[in-house]
């Protein structure tokens, strides 16, 4: 076991994918000799040559558009958008082509391509370098949107995304690039479609993804000291959504908080809250609460600490989950897990992802695609 950062794990995933499949191509702005501004493509140009990993002209719509063409003809392009906000020029390509090509052609043309986007704040970046843009993509049918929360998932999910026959928006939590884990690579973790319970608990389900998973785990520790037993669910796949794992947890705990960095209004947390409520209404002791970024443009570095969800804010939200039986005198405690559930999607996966808590299952990655 060696200490591996998420950036290193992602780098290794790209390297292994390039080695495993000659159709994989990595390109974008500064991904060649420089190795990307976050060094995620470090060394790839040198190892695989400028034909396999290269700098393109500086134009994001062109990068995604050419990737569409490559994927139409047997390529497996993995392109990098340098920062979240700089993927916006490619929005039309993503929404009007990448998401729709398979459907448009009744499956005749598939687009196995990955658009890597470092996203989120917390690194002291100036304007336009800290957006959390996941809600824009997750609302677009035809795109898969995934985001790893730790180095092992960084490796495994990126390899899975590259192998996936659908286009994947792969959101990398940039403030976690330097997070370390003891890790032997290659590693294969749970399917990228699956949410995973990162820390089990009985009192409240804390739902997080990407950059907020570590914050959620920290919160769980702090809450434990206050006597609250928090279950942390790492969503991993934002679209499609793993209803089974999440609903199972919330029915058990009866309370839920969802947390993300993006502005709260119209954010991804709204979807989580709405669907969890719909599926678990009669198990809920309190409304599903959301902790998100403020509903303002992402602030400058010196003020970002006021914007970002913190352990304290998540604990505060938990405090508002109506723990006192008499807090709301007319409302008797809700029925718990033995109650009749609302009609709900239990088909998200054969195995209940919720019960599988192994952080990562070390197994060699099959070099060829499934």
């Amino acid at each position, binding site marked *: 076991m060696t200490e591996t950062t998420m950036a290193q794990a992602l780098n290794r995933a790209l390297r292994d994918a390039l080695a495993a499949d000659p159709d994989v191509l990595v390109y974008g702005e500064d991904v060649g000799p420089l190795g990307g501004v976050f060094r995620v493509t470090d060394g790839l140009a040198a190892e695989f040559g400028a034909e396999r990993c290269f700098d393109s002209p500086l134009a994001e719509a062109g990068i995604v558009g050419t990737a569409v*063409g490559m994927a139409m*003809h047997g390529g497996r392009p993995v392109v990098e958008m340098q920062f979240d906000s700089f993927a916006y020029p490619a929005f039309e*390509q993503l929404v009007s082509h990448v998401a729709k090509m398979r459907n448009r*052609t009744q499956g*005749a043309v598939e687009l196995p391509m990955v658009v890597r986007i470092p996203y989120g704040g917390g690194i002291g970046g100036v304007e336009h370098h800290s957006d959390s843009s996941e809600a824009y993509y997750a609302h677009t049918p035809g795109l*898969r949107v995934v985001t790893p929360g730790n180095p092992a998932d960084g490796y495994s999910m990126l390899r899975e995304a590259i192998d996936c026959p659908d286009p994947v928006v792969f959101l990398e939590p940039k403030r976690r690039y330097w997070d370390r884990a003891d890790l032997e690579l290659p590693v294969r973790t749970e399917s990228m479609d699956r949410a995973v319970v990162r820390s089990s608990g009985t009192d409240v389900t804390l739902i997080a993804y990407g950059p907020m998973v570590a914050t959620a785990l920290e919160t769980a520790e702090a809450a434990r000291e206050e006597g609250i037993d928090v279950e942390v669910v790492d969503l991993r796949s934002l679209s*499609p959504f793993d209803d089974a794992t999440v609903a199972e947890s919330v029915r058990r705990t009866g309370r839920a908080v969802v947390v993300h960095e993006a502005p709260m209004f119209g954010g991804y947390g709204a979807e989580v809250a709405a669907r969890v409520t719909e599926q678990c209404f009669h198990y809920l002791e309190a409304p599903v609460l959301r902790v998100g970024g403020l509903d303002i443009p992402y602030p400058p570095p010196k003020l970002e600490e006021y914007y970002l969800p913190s352990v304290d804010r998540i604990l505060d939200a938990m405090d508002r989950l109506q723990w006192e039986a008499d807090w709301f005198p007319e409302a008797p405690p809700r029925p718990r897990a033995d109650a009749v559930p609302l009609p709900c999607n239990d088909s998200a996966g054969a195995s209940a992802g919720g019960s599988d808590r192994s952080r990562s299952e070390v197994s060699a990655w099959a070099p060829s695609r499934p």
Partner: protein
Amino acid sequence: MKRIDDRAEPAPAPTLPSTEPIRLVDRKGHRVVDSAYPTPDHGTLLTLLRSMVIGRRFDRQAGALARQGRLAVYPSSYGQEACQIGGVLALAEHDWLFPTYRDCVALVTRGIDPVDTLTLMRGDWHNGYDPGRYRCAPQCTPLATNASHAVGLTYAARRKGEDVAALVLMGDGATSEGDAHEAYNFAAVWNTPVVFLIQNNHWAISVPVRKQSAAPTLAHKAIGYGMRGYHVDGNDAAAVYSVVSHALGEARAGGGPAIIEAQTYRLDPHTNSDAPQRYRDESEVEYWKERDPVARLEALLRAEGRLDDAELDRVAAEAERLATDLRERLSGERSPRGTRDAGRRGGPALSPDDLFTHVYAAAPPMLAQQRQALLDELRGV
């Protein structure tokens, strides 16, 4: 000052296109001598003519179907046959074509079943043919957005060692989009074999080309990317064929991509629901009708003794058969205005079930549920 900058050597000393378009056949059907671009041989000219007669008949039929409400919409090719057909016939079978909504005649010329070329316009589905089989991308509606697809596709083909060039069709209006620029630039920097054929039909719906560009010609853009630019008479099928062939040949040989501006004219309204009297004068249409691409080639071939009434009748009959076939096969169509006259139900080509099948390679649980709910709803469960 020595340029330390080692920019890729620009393709053969770029010269500016002439403001007079390249022309091989004038509007009376006389040959024009141009030493740079050979006039196609008679066999090719006959093929061009035959395709234009068929293409025009198809287009007229599709227009009629649209007026009858059997198509959701139809953007006409009338007047632009030389561009679409001259361009498509210059392609090799293994090359790729990237058409727009405007280019149904190009699709027919590419060999796609006419009924399938109209799937989008019928409102049955977004695309009606297998792009891989015909090496023809789906018709593209968001302007200029498929141009970069062509660049990526030819790049991927070259990596596999395949000799694949691509022809991108685009309108004059589309050149204003940032996507056009990015595609031109990627093609030039990566030196991929793509020819961008701009059908300058002088209008982008109601907007005249002078409101799109102040350039001497649209082909003048080429030099700004370090590629070759050609300005051609787009109603001269021989010239379009010859110049596109030439450009494709250069591109294949590593000479880089090219922009071709073809001067043509949309004789019909933008689509069946357009109101051209609001923005253009009928005299302009008359002016261009005198420059008809079909009549011109017919005149030449007749004058040179390569075409007689009998042959023309044969071609016309073939075109008529295609039109009849199209009409008959679409006669069972219900109106595509699904919601607005939902009373007029009829069977669409695809079932509601198909809505869910190809969103992803495998439908995720949420979609499987929605499919089930819809099927239940339709069965009245």
